């Protein structure tokens, strides 16, 4: 999908903020819900192809 444009600015980095290589992990995402994707359409076909070949998005891009 195309990149979203966000017009509102990012906050200024708080004084004293530190992180290893400027990154700080906090918490993993919430547990997901299991649902069925409909096996229809071009984007699903790409998804199925990645899944069956265990390829990532970027491998798929190449």
């Amino acid at each position, binding site marked *: 999908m195309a990149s979203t444009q966000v017009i509102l600015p990012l*906050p200024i980095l708080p004084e004293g903020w530190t992180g290893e290589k400027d990154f700080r992990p906090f918490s993993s995402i919430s547990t997901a819900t299991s649902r069925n994707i409909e096996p229809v359409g071009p984007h699903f076909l790409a998804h199925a192809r990645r899944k069956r070949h265990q390829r990532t*998005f970027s491998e798929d891009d190449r």
Partner: protein
Amino acid sequence: MSDQEGTGAASTPPERIVIGIAFGNSNSSIAFTSKEGKAEVIANEDGDRQIPSMLSYVQGEEYHGTQAKTHLVRNSKNTIAYFRDFLGQDFKSIDPTPCHASAHPIEHESTVAFSIQESAEEGTHVPITVSEITTRHLRRLASSASDFLGKSVNAAVITVPTDFSEKQRDALISAAQVAGIDILQIIHEPIATVLAYDARPESKVLDKVVVVADFGGTRSDVAIIASRGGMYTILATAHDYSLGGANLDQALIDYFAKEFTKKHKTDPRENTRSLAKLKLEAEATKKALSLGASGSFSVESLADGIDYNSTVNRTRYELLAGKVFSGFTRLVEGAIQKAGLDVLDVDEVILSGGASHTPKIACILQSVFPEKASILAPSTSATAINPSELAARGAAIQANLIQEFDKEDIEQSTHPVVTATPHLAYAIGVVAISSDEKHGIFKPLMEAETAVPVRRSAQIATPKEGGDVLIRICEGLREIKAHKPEPKPKVNGNKPGNASDGDGEDSGVSDDDEEEIRQIVWKAGRVLAEAAIRGVKKGGKVEVGVNVGEDLSLSITAREVGGKGGVRGVVGRPKAAENGSA
């Protein structure tokens, strides 16, 4: 379904000629995808694109489609109609109501059949099973498509309602097989419908919630679909098996029958043949009312040899059918509720099915949904696709996508191993600063109900002077905020002398009429990670990429647009112990 992995295809099977088929209880449609990639619905030899799913047997002759439908008047007992939903069912579990004016379903061995006099000889009734009649119907459809394409059709993608059981699907595949049609894939009607719209060249791939409201002849079905980057997940469905275009016909039948009874002292509804004539004409009048401001109604020899001519205008019709319309709306609202959503969450409402041509239905739905939602129906959108053609078009598009694939490939890709997928419980996004307030605003980058793996990116503005900025990635909670608008200061409304009365507490007629304003607001929830980008130049932007892996691990990249380096980091997947704690 990969195209290039056939491990040395040794034998070349006969060329696949594939079409899309929409098979309804009332009508069926056939479609193909042209060399230019455009889906087109095929007209049969009668010139019909909506082909009644009916077969009639008259003196040894088989009639199909519209020709069979006209036999409902004189030859109803030998005309088979409204049978799709009986396929693959036990006799005990079917509702025979739609067939009361055509051949009645009977119990036959373990299945459903119709007792038909197939040959010209009197008294030679034979049971024709619902599988057999489906085979004959599909054979006629395929043959019309073959005539049109000049090639013999041997494969299809076919649509079914979302509540079609495994048994019904199997019965459909077998019935098609006997007709010489290899069903490459069965797809859900509302998904075919969404695909028909999304396949248009001007469509953009967006994250959106789509409602497909399918108002057919004998039934109505609603599906709430999370459409995420072109992939579709059904969140909820609702069905009404006794609500459809036939109820609209009935409203007109009752109206004209009463008028006729008043004049001629005989109720045409009491005579089978008169009733059949009323039905056919009411349907034609109803269709005319979808286009024009009035519809004429005329039947030769309606009852007691009396011809009948009348008209009805649209306003009257909409009153007569008011209850049916509210039934449609209620079904849609119920489905949204079932999905745990609000009308405000809906971006697109696609009206499909023949009854969706009715302008009033689209008009009522328009008032139910917020303004941002597009109501895709002929009367509300100039670019709407014919609601009667959506399912068939979608099937043809899917057929075109998979026509080169091995059967085995298709089966593997549609298997739950591939389709059952974790979906995000919450939106994931980034915190930005609103221009006037000091606190952050959550901007979703990926919506809840998005299947993983998924990646999204955004380019985000930075403070005027650039500098060091914070990227805070968190989950977002969508809330609905309701508030009454500020009461407007009254200029003329108040009686003189009342001016000193407290504003809020007048017994007020007009204030309570103010509609509540409801809107979606995002609240930042669980913080997932933070990153810093330092020394952004004046006017610079930061590109943030978020990637959720199949195992729900999160990776984040951030860099100044046009800049070098940047930050990347990973947040591990949720621990099993956390299951359900969200």
